[in-house]
């Protein structure tokens, strides 16, 4: 439908796609401005990872999608991820192909739809939130994403509504030439509660491609959001994922991030603890293999009094994979009695694998508590010996130790089905 998108994206192209989808004028303008900005802004610069050397130009062209009649039409590996989901959104390539929300949730005022539909059906509401947690002009990546995002999720939970069932989204792509860029907006109004789980994957290989996704979560006073996201994109795909939550007074978020991709990854998850008594818990698990390069960052920014953050990352690196793991706890002046704790651990299974754990504490207030622990190492031969001395084979001994290493993250996952799914995916990637 258009010429190959160059990098940076052209304003005219972004606007044309937007208009083609019938988006409201404010959104078309936002995309246009973002496209314009992308030309002058620079790529983000995570510690010790030169993402500017990655092939980030393969953003793909906007692809047309046709709705699915049911999940039965999903490719097998995608279908198994959402089996039994009551509330479900499915994005294939550039757009949504399936939407389902139980009637009783809709009746309570819960909105769970793709972001493009939300832009037309809930335009004013969405405008209050879209690109408010993440600004379009932060860097080249946010600008490109603001210009090009597609499909996506809008989840809105009205005040005092507690959603019992997990709301699930599935993003998959079978065609490396199309743009695959979900944007997720979650709004949990005061004292509401919701659990959201998504999976991103590619089916089949193909040419180099970039998947860029961004998540904006607004957790209002006293609300609680459980967010889990598992990415398993192919080796031809670079995953650029930025997630951000803004928490008001006594709001709470739990992040579970599984970075199980086969290609390069830049993943950045930040909780902005604006409100007093707000709290954030982030658990990140990753397995690297082949020649993968990964930059995994978790961050907590404390503004509120008595705000609390905990971040745990565990990564297993095989083959010649490299992971740079950053944990950034920032406590602003005035955030008294804040508490920030972080742990990053990397287990390397091969002498050529590389792991780097960078705990960073930036504290501008005296009356706080903060702690960090980081370690990078190989499987302990004493432990292998101990297990083998009980008759367990070397391979099984190492397997037990590796799963044990990942257990602190895996056992934190609040939903049984997701935990089991993650366990299976870990197993698959460890044994591949």
């Amino acid at each position, binding site marked *: 439908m258009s010429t190959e998108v160059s990098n940076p994206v052209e304003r005219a192209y972004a606007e044309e796609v937007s208009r083609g989808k019938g988006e409201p004028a404010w959104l078309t303008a936002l995309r246009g401005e973002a496209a314009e900005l992308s030309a002058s802004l620079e790529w983000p610069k995570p510690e010790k990872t030169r993402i500017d050397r990655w092939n980030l130009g393969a953003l793909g062209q906007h692809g047309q999608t046709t709705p699915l009649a049911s999940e039965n039409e999903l490719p097998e590996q995608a279908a198994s991820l959402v089996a039994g989901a009551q509330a479900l959104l499915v994005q294939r390539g550039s757009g949504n192909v399936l939407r389902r929300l139980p009637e009783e949730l809709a009746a309570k005022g819960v909105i769970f739809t793709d972001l493009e539909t939300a832009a037309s059906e809930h335009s004013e509401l969405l405008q209050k939130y879209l690109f408010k947690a993440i600004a379009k002009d932060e860097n080249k990546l946010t600008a490109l994403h603001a210009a090009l995002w597609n499909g996506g999720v809008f989840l809105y939970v009205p005040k005092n509504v507690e959603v019992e069932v997990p709301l699930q989204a599935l993003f998959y792509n079978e065609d490396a030439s199309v743009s695959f860029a979900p944007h997720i907006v979650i709004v949990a109004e005061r004292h509401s509660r919701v659990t959201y789980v998504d999976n991103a994957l590619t089916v089949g290989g193909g040419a180099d491609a970039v998947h860029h996704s961004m998540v904006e979560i607004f957790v209002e006073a006293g609300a609680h959001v459980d967010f889990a996201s598992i990415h398993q994109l192919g080796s031809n795909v670079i995953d650029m994922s930025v997630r951000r939550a803004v928490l008001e007074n006594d709001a709470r978020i739990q992040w579970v991030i599984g970075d199980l991709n086969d290609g390069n990854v830049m993943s950045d998850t930040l909780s902005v603890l604006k409100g007093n008594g707000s709290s954030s818990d982030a658990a990140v698990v990753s397995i690297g293999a082949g020649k993968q390069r990964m930059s995994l960052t978790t961050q907590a920014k404390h503004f509120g009094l008595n705000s609390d953050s905990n971040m745990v990352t565990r990564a297993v690196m095989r083959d010649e994979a490299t992971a740079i793991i950053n944990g950034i706890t920032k406590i602003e002046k005035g955030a008294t009695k804040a508490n920030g704790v972080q742990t990053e651990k990397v287990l390397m299974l091969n002498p050529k694998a590389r792991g780097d754990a960078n705990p960073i504490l930036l504290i501008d207030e005296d009356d706080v508590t903060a702690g960090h622990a980081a370690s990078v190492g190989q499987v302990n031969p004493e432990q292998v010996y101990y297990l083998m001395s009980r008759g367990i084979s*070397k391979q099984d001994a190492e397997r*037990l*130790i590796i*799963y044990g*290493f990942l*257990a602190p993250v895996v056992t934190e996952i609040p939903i049984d089905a997701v935990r089991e799914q993650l366990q299976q995916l870990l197993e698959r990637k460890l044994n591949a």
Partner: protein
Amino acid sequence: MATQFVIDGLKATIEGKEILKGINLSMKGGEIHAIMGPNGTGKSTLASALMGHPKYEVTEGTATLNDEDLMEMAVDERARAGLFLAMQYPSEISGVTNSDFLRSAINARREEGSEISLIKFIRQMEGKMKELDMNPEFAHRYLNEGFSGGEKKRNEILQMMLLDPKVVILDEIDSGLDIDALKIVAQGVNAMRSEDRAFLVITHYQRLLNYVKPDFVHVMMQGRIVKSGGPELAERLEAEGYDWVKAELGIEDETVGQA
């Protein structure tokens, strides 16, 4: 066939330094042998070398269990052949629950497809834990993580009981135990005494041998067994120390491989 365990001319080195200088020892099922000796004489090295600790290199000799040379086997094969070492310093393994570990160890001895059922396993484990006066909660704790010294030792005995080995080596199982814990551990060992199981008890002290009665007592010095006898030898060592042994044998420095 009655269990026969024969160590013949075993020599071992650590980082090129010879610590075991030719150990000869023959044990039969039903017997309890004690190895005593001062610190630094090679007792624990013997235990580790028999099990196959990667730090030790066996340079000469054999250790045959029912005519199979364990020294030719990998660590896990030695264990499956029937050797069990209750370690002085068991590893702590985070994230692996005690029960998952124990079940893996039991299943490692079984053919694929005939793994122990979960219910049967739990029944067995809980039964043995009760015998050892262990809090059932320890089944769900991570392996040895945060266990006290005494809890770790009990956990070693629990593993021994569940794995039903032919040859058991207890390496300083009494160190760090108070008298009540020592009695429980000794009870566990005594309950496992049988005609087809041999025990090798390594200890500094006579104390444990009051509860686990040895049939034979050996004294180790300079990386060798220098004296053997019956239970009365242990009693004399407790009463008089090791100096008379050294004098009798003309040994000045009993240690081995000390820099």
